[in-house]
Protein backbone atom coordinates (compact mmCIF):
# COMPACT_ATOMS: atom_id res chain seq x y z
CA UNK A 1 0.00 0.00 0.00
CA UNK A 2 1.27 3.40 -0.84
CA UNK A 3 1.57 5.57 2.23
CA UNK A 4 1.33 9.26 1.60
CA UNK A 5 2.91 11.56 4.10
CA UNK A 6 1.25 14.92 4.04
CA UNK A 7 2.27 16.11 7.43
CA UNK A 8 5.51 17.74 6.61
CA UNK A 9 6.84 18.04 10.13
CA UNK A 10 6.96 14.33 10.85
CA UNK A 11 10.08 12.39 10.15
CA UNK A 12 10.28 9.82 7.45
CA UNK A 13 10.20 6.41 9.07
CA UNK A 14 8.57 7.71 12.23
CA UNK A 15 6.53 5.18 14.11
CA UNK A 16 3.71 7.73 14.19
CA UNK A 17 3.42 7.92 10.42
CA UNK A 18 -0.17 8.32 9.29
CA UNK A 19 -1.89 7.13 6.24
CA UNK A 20 -3.70 9.79 4.29
CA UNK A 21 -6.96 8.28 5.46
CA UNK A 22 -6.02 8.48 9.16
CA UNK A 23 -4.80 12.02 8.72
CA UNK A 24 -8.03 13.12 7.06
CA UNK A 25 -10.23 11.30 9.57
CA UNK A 26 -8.64 13.34 12.31
CA UNK A 27 -8.25 16.75 10.69
CA UNK A 28 -11.52 16.86 8.79
CA UNK A 29 -13.48 16.02 11.92
CA UNK A 30 -11.79 18.83 13.84
CA UNK A 31 -12.20 21.24 10.96
CA UNK A 32 -15.91 20.54 10.62
CA UNK A 33 -16.46 21.00 14.35
CA UNK A 34 -14.54 24.27 14.28
CA UNK A 35 -16.52 25.41 11.25
CA UNK A 36 -19.80 24.75 13.05
CA UNK A 37 -18.57 26.61 16.14
CA UNK A 38 -17.54 29.44 13.86
CA UNK A 39 -20.96 29.52 12.23
CA UNK A 40 -22.64 29.90 15.63
CA UNK A 41 -20.16 32.60 16.64
CA UNK A 42 -20.75 34.37 13.38
CA UNK A 43 -24.51 34.54 13.91
CA UNK A 44 -24.07 35.93 17.43
CA UNK A 45 -21.48 38.40 16.19
CA UNK A 46 -23.65 39.50 13.28
CA UNK A 47 -26.47 40.33 15.67
CA UNK A 48 -24.00 42.09 17.94
CA UNK A 49 -22.73 44.51 15.27
CA UNK A 50 -26.15 45.03 13.68
CA UNK A 51 -27.22 48.33 15.14
CA UNK A 52 -29.92 50.48 13.66
CA UNK A 53 -28.58 53.69 12.23
CA UNK A 54 -29.68 56.77 14.03
Amino acid at each position, binding site marked *: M*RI*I*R*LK*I*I*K*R*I*GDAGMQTLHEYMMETKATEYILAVIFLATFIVFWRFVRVERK
Partner: protein
Amino acid sequence: MTVNRRDFLKLAGAAGIAGAAQASSARAAPTNRVSDDWMGMLTDLTLCEGCRKCEWACRGANGLTHDQPIDDYDDKSVFEQRRRPDAENFTVVNRFASERPGENPTNVKIQCMHCFEPACASACLVAAFRKTPEGPVLYDESVCIGCRYCMMACPFGMPAYTYDDPFSPAVKKCTMCFERISKEGGMPACAEICPLEAITFGKRSDLLALARSKIESEPDKYIDHIYGEKEAGGTCWMYVAGKPFGDLGFRTDVGTTPYPELTKGFLSAVPLVLTVWPALLMGAYAFTKHREQLAHAEDEQAANSTTTSEEGIHG
Protein backbone atom coordinates in the same frame (compact mmCIF):
# COMPACT_ATOMS: atom_id res chain seq x y z
CA MET B 1 20.51 20.87 -25.55
CA THR B 2 23.99 19.79 -26.33
CA VAL B 3 23.22 16.16 -26.96
CA ASN B 4 19.93 14.62 -27.61
CA ARG B 5 18.62 12.01 -25.33
CA ARG B 6 19.04 8.98 -27.48
CA ASP B 7 22.64 9.83 -28.33
CA PHE B 8 23.31 10.39 -24.71
CA LEU B 9 21.93 7.07 -23.69
CA LYS B 10 23.85 5.32 -26.43
CA LEU B 11 27.04 6.89 -25.20
CA ALA B 12 26.24 6.03 -21.64
CA GLY B 13 25.50 2.47 -22.64
CA ALA B 14 28.68 2.20 -24.67
CA ALA B 15 30.63 3.39 -21.67
CA GLY B 16 29.25 0.53 -19.70
CA ILE B 17 27.55 2.80 -17.23
CA ALA B 18 24.02 2.26 -18.21
CA GLY B 19 22.32 -0.84 -19.48
CA ALA B 20 20.54 -1.07 -22.77
CA ALA B 21 19.27 2.26 -23.94
CA GLN B 22 15.58 2.53 -23.51
CA ALA B 23 13.91 5.25 -25.44
CA SER B 24 10.63 5.89 -23.73
CA SER B 25 8.31 8.76 -24.43
CA ALA B 26 8.89 12.05 -22.69
CA ARG B 27 7.95 12.03 -19.04
CA ALA B 28 4.84 14.02 -18.41
CA ALA B 29 3.10 11.78 -15.92
CA PRO B 30 3.34 13.04 -12.38
CA THR B 31 3.88 11.53 -8.98
CA ASN B 32 3.84 7.81 -8.99
CA ARG B 33 6.07 6.81 -11.82
CA VAL B 34 9.14 4.71 -11.33
CA SER B 35 12.00 6.03 -13.34
CA ASP B 36 14.36 3.56 -14.86
CA ASP B 37 16.69 5.52 -17.06
CA TRP B 38 17.67 8.72 -15.33
CA MET B 39 21.31 9.08 -14.47
CA GLY B 40 22.16 9.68 -10.85
CA MET B 41 24.76 9.59 -8.14
CA LEU B 42 25.08 7.50 -5.01
CA THR B 43 27.22 8.84 -2.19
CA ASP B 44 28.25 6.30 0.42
CA LEU B 45 28.87 8.33 3.55
CA THR B 46 30.49 5.40 5.33
CA LEU B 47 33.37 5.54 2.84
CA CYS B 48 34.01 9.28 2.67
CA GLU B 49 37.03 10.40 4.68
CA GLY B 50 36.65 14.11 4.04
CA CYS B 51 39.62 14.66 1.74
CA ARG B 52 37.61 17.33 -0.08
CA LYS B 53 39.22 16.49 -3.41
CA CYS B 54 35.71 16.54 -4.84
CA GLU B 55 35.48 20.22 -3.91
CA TRP B 56 38.71 20.89 -5.74
CA ALA B 57 37.68 18.96 -8.81
CA CYS B 58 34.25 20.59 -8.82
CA ARG B 59 35.76 24.04 -8.97
CA GLY B 60 37.93 23.05 -11.90
CA ALA B 61 35.10 21.41 -13.78
CA ASN B 62 32.75 24.35 -13.34
CA GLY B 63 35.19 27.15 -14.08
CA LEU B 64 35.00 28.54 -10.56
CA THR B 65 37.87 30.27 -8.80
CA HIS B 66 40.47 27.55 -8.85
CA ASP B 67 43.65 29.09 -7.48
CA GLN B 68 44.25 26.86 -4.46
CA PRO B 69 46.40 23.77 -5.02
CA ILE B 70 44.77 20.48 -4.20
CA ASP B 71 47.02 19.97 -1.16
CA ASP B 72 45.41 22.98 0.53
CA TYR B 73 42.21 21.01 0.67
CA ASP B 74 43.76 18.76 3.30
CA ASP B 75 43.22 21.61 5.76
CA LYS B 76 40.81 20.16 8.27
CA SER B 77 40.06 23.46 10.01
CA VAL B 78 37.23 24.16 7.55
CA PHE B 79 35.26 21.44 9.30
CA GLU B 80 34.97 23.60 12.40
CA GLN B 81 32.13 25.45 10.72
CA ARG B 82 29.17 23.95 9.01
CA ARG B 83 29.23 25.13 5.41
CA ARG B 84 26.69 25.16 2.61
CA PRO B 85 27.15 25.33 -1.16
CA ASP B 86 27.54 28.85 -2.46
CA ALA B 87 28.35 30.66 -5.67
CA GLU B 88 32.01 29.58 -5.54
CA ASN B 89 31.48 26.09 -4.16
CA PHE B 90 28.85 23.97 -5.87
CA THR B 91 29.61 21.21 -3.41
CA VAL B 92 30.96 21.23 0.15
CA VAL B 93 31.90 18.54 2.64
CA ASN B 94 30.89 18.91 6.27
CA ARG B 95 32.14 16.75 9.12
CA PHE B 96 29.83 15.42 11.81
CA ALA B 97 31.61 14.09 14.87
CA SER B 98 30.34 10.87 16.35
CA GLU B 99 28.68 10.94 19.72
CA ARG B 100 30.48 7.76 20.69
CA PRO B 101 34.13 8.44 21.51
CA GLY B 102 36.70 6.78 19.31
CA GLU B 103 34.28 6.31 16.45
CA ASN B 104 35.11 7.93 13.15
CA PRO B 105 33.28 11.11 12.22
CA THR B 106 30.95 11.10 9.22
CA ASN B 107 31.78 13.37 6.31
CA VAL B 108 28.88 14.60 4.26
CA LYS B 109 29.23 15.98 0.76
CA ILE B 110 26.24 18.08 -0.23
CA GLN B 111 25.15 19.67 -3.50
CA CYS B 112 22.02 19.98 -5.66
CA MET B 113 20.01 16.77 -5.35
CA HIS B 114 18.61 16.92 -8.92
CA CYS B 115 15.02 16.16 -7.92
CA PHE B 116 12.65 14.13 -10.11
CA GLU B 117 10.16 16.97 -9.85
CA PRO B 118 12.30 20.00 -9.09
CA ALA B 119 10.74 22.63 -6.84
CA CYS B 120 13.03 25.23 -8.42
CA ALA B 121 11.68 24.48 -11.90
CA SER B 122 8.07 24.70 -10.76
CA ALA B 123 8.83 27.95 -8.94
CA CYS B 124 10.59 29.75 -11.77
CA LEU B 125 8.42 32.38 -13.43
CA VAL B 126 10.59 32.47 -16.55
CA ALA B 127 11.14 28.70 -16.82
CA ALA B 128 14.88 29.08 -16.35
CA PHE B 129 15.17 25.58 -14.88
CA ARG B 130 14.61 22.35 -16.69
CA LYS B 131 14.84 18.72 -15.80
CA THR B 132 16.88 17.17 -18.55
CA PRO B 133 15.84 13.74 -19.77
CA GLU B 134 19.28 12.58 -18.62
CA GLY B 135 18.59 13.52 -15.01
CA PRO B 136 20.48 16.71 -14.16
CA VAL B 137 18.44 19.84 -13.38
CA LEU B 138 19.90 22.73 -15.36
CA TYR B 139 19.58 26.48 -15.02
CA ASP B 140 19.55 29.01 -17.85
CA GLU B 141 20.96 32.33 -16.80
CA SER B 142 19.88 34.12 -19.96
CA VAL B 143 16.24 34.49 -18.90
CA CYS B 144 16.64 34.73 -15.11
CA ILE B 145 15.29 37.95 -13.61
CA GLY B 146 16.76 37.26 -10.18
CA CYS B 147 13.64 36.89 -8.05
CA ARG B 148 15.30 34.03 -6.12
CA TYR B 149 12.03 32.18 -5.66
CA CYS B 150 13.89 28.99 -6.65
CA MET B 151 16.04 29.44 -3.56
CA MET B 152 12.95 29.92 -1.42
CA ALA B 153 11.41 26.79 -2.90
CA CYS B 154 14.31 24.32 -2.92
CA PRO B 155 13.59 21.74 -0.21
CA PHE B 156 17.31 21.16 0.23
CA GLY B 157 18.30 24.84 0.14
CA MET B 158 20.96 24.24 -2.48
CA PRO B 159 20.81 27.06 -5.06
CA ALA B 160 23.14 29.96 -4.33
CA TYR B 161 23.17 33.48 -5.73
CA THR B 162 25.96 35.85 -6.72
CA TYR B 163 24.74 38.70 -4.56
CA ASP B 164 28.05 40.51 -5.05
CA ASP B 165 27.53 40.89 -8.79
CA PRO B 166 25.61 44.11 -9.51
CA PHE B 167 25.02 43.66 -13.23
CA SER B 168 24.77 39.97 -13.97
CA PRO B 169 23.88 38.17 -10.76
CA ALA B 170 22.83 34.56 -11.26
CA VAL B 171 21.84 31.38 -9.52
CA LYS B 172 24.68 28.91 -9.08
CA LYS B 173 24.39 25.22 -8.43
CA CYS B 174 25.69 21.79 -9.29
CA THR B 175 24.90 20.60 -12.83
CA MET B 176 25.93 17.00 -12.24
CA CYS B 177 28.64 17.98 -14.73
CA PHE B 178 26.15 17.84 -17.56
CA GLU B 179 28.76 18.68 -20.21
CA ARG B 180 31.16 16.01 -18.99
CA ILE B 181 28.63 13.23 -18.66
CA SER B 182 27.29 14.05 -22.11
CA LYS B 183 30.61 12.90 -23.56
CA GLU B 184 31.52 9.30 -24.01
CA GLY B 185 32.60 7.74 -20.76
CA GLY B 186 32.25 11.06 -18.99
CA MET B 187 31.86 11.17 -15.25
CA PRO B 188 31.04 14.03 -12.94
CA ALA B 189 34.30 15.51 -11.70
CA CYS B 190 33.64 14.68 -8.05
CA ALA B 191 32.91 11.02 -8.77
CA GLU B 192 35.92 10.73 -10.99
CA ILE B 193 38.39 12.12 -8.48
CA CYS B 194 37.03 10.43 -5.37
CA PRO B 195 39.96 8.26 -4.19
CA LEU B 196 37.73 6.04 -2.08
CA GLU B 197 35.02 5.69 -4.69
CA ALA B 198 32.49 6.94 -2.20
CA ILE B 199 30.57 8.51 -5.09
CA THR B 200 29.16 6.29 -7.80
CA PHE B 201 27.72 7.59 -11.05
CA GLY B 202 25.27 5.63 -13.12
CA LYS B 203 21.75 4.83 -14.01
CA ARG B 204 19.60 5.73 -11.08
CA SER B 205 17.85 2.35 -11.07
CA ASP B 206 21.22 0.63 -10.93
CA LEU B 207 22.35 2.91 -8.13
CA LEU B 208 19.22 2.16 -6.17
CA ALA B 209 19.87 -1.57 -6.55
CA LEU B 210 23.48 -1.01 -5.51
CA ALA B 211 22.37 0.95 -2.44
CA ARG B 212 19.91 -1.77 -1.47
CA SER B 213 22.48 -4.51 -1.83
CA LYS B 214 24.92 -2.51 0.33
CA ILE B 215 22.33 -2.16 3.06
CA GLU B 216 21.27 -5.77 2.82
CA SER B 217 24.74 -7.22 2.81
CA GLU B 218 25.98 -5.10 5.72
CA PRO B 219 22.99 -4.26 7.88
CA ASP B 220 25.25 -3.41 10.83
CA LYS B 221 27.19 -0.85 8.86
CA TYR B 222 24.29 0.92 7.14
CA ILE B 223 21.00 2.22 8.38
CA ASP B 224 18.01 1.08 6.36
CA HIS B 225 17.32 4.32 4.56
CA ILE B 226 18.35 5.52 1.13
CA TYR B 227 18.16 9.30 1.31
CA GLY B 228 16.86 10.59 -2.00
CA GLU B 229 14.93 7.47 -2.91
CA LYS B 230 11.68 9.11 -1.88
CA GLU B 231 12.58 12.48 -0.41
CA ALA B 232 10.64 15.33 -2.01
CA GLY B 233 9.30 12.82 -4.50
CA GLY B 234 12.70 11.30 -5.21
CA THR B 235 16.03 12.69 -6.30
CA CYS B 236 18.72 11.63 -8.72
CA TRP B 237 21.40 12.07 -6.10
CA MET B 238 21.12 9.52 -3.32
CA TYR B 239 22.93 8.68 -0.11
CA VAL B 240 23.52 5.72 2.13
CA ALA B 241 24.92 6.22 5.61
CA GLY B 242 25.75 4.53 8.88
CA LYS B 243 23.76 6.97 10.96
CA PRO B 244 20.31 8.49 10.79
CA PHE B 245 20.33 11.28 8.22
CA GLY B 246 18.80 13.72 10.68
CA ASP B 247 22.05 13.57 12.65
CA LEU B 248 24.08 14.34 9.57
CA GLY B 249 22.56 17.69 8.67
CA PHE B 250 20.00 16.34 6.21
CA ARG B 251 16.51 17.73 6.29
CA THR B 252 14.21 14.92 7.29
CA ASP B 253 11.01 16.95 7.08
CA VAL B 254 10.86 17.29 3.30
CA GLY B 255 8.26 14.58 2.94
CA THR B 256 7.78 12.30 -0.04
CA THR B 257 5.38 14.55 -1.94
CA PRO B 258 6.91 16.04 -5.10
CA TYR B 259 7.06 19.78 -4.44
CA PRO B 260 5.14 20.91 -7.54
CA GLU B 261 2.24 19.02 -5.98
CA LEU B 262 2.13 21.67 -3.23
CA THR B 263 1.06 24.47 -5.55
CA LYS B 264 -0.90 22.33 -8.00
CA GLY B 265 -4.21 22.86 -6.21
CA PHE B 266 -3.83 26.60 -6.15
CA LEU B 267 -2.82 26.79 -9.79
CA SER B 268 -5.87 24.72 -10.72
CA ALA B 269 -8.11 27.21 -8.96
CA VAL B 270 -6.86 30.09 -11.10
CA PRO B 271 -8.67 29.27 -14.35
CA LEU B 272 -11.79 28.50 -12.32
CA VAL B 273 -11.74 31.95 -10.73
CA LEU B 274 -11.10 33.53 -14.11
CA THR B 275 -14.08 31.71 -15.57
CA VAL B 276 -16.60 31.91 -12.75
CA TRP B 277 -15.94 35.33 -11.18
CA PRO B 278 -17.04 37.47 -14.16
CA ALA B 279 -20.50 35.88 -14.14
CA LEU B 280 -20.87 36.17 -10.37
CA LEU B 281 -19.71 39.77 -10.24
CA MET B 282 -21.71 40.89 -13.25
CA GLY B 283 -24.65 39.06 -11.70
CA ALA B 284 -24.24 41.09 -8.54
CA TYR B 285 -24.04 44.22 -10.65
CA ALA B 286 -27.19 43.35 -12.59
CA PHE B 287 -29.00 42.53 -9.36
CA THR B 288 -28.03 45.89 -7.84
CA LYS B 289 -29.00 47.73 -10.99
CA HIS B 290 -32.34 45.94 -11.13
CA ARG B 291 -33.15 46.83 -7.55
CA GLU B 292 -32.24 50.43 -8.15
CA GLN B 293 -34.52 50.56 -11.16
CA LEU B 294 -37.36 49.01 -9.17
CA ALA B 295 -36.84 51.48 -6.34
CA HIS B 296 -36.72 54.29 -8.85
CA ALA B 297 -39.92 53.18 -10.53
CA GLU B 298 -41.57 52.76 -7.16
CA ASP B 299 -40.56 56.26 -6.14
CA GLU B 300 -42.03 57.66 -9.31
CA GLN B 301 -45.17 55.66 -8.90
CA ALA B 302 -45.41 56.81 -5.31
CA ALA B 303 -44.89 60.38 -6.33
CA ASN B 304 -47.66 60.08 -8.92
CA SER B 305 -50.10 58.28 -6.69
CA THR B 306 -49.69 60.54 -3.66
CA THR B 307 -51.43 63.22 -5.64
CA THR B 308 -54.50 61.01 -5.93
CA SER B 309 -54.32 58.62 -3.02
CA GLU B 310 -52.11 57.78 -0.04
CA GLU B 311 -52.36 54.04 -0.71
CA GLY B 312 -49.64 54.14 -3.34
CA ILE B 313 -46.97 54.27 -0.67
CA HIS B 314 -45.79 50.99 0.64
CA GLY B 315 -42.73 49.32 2.05
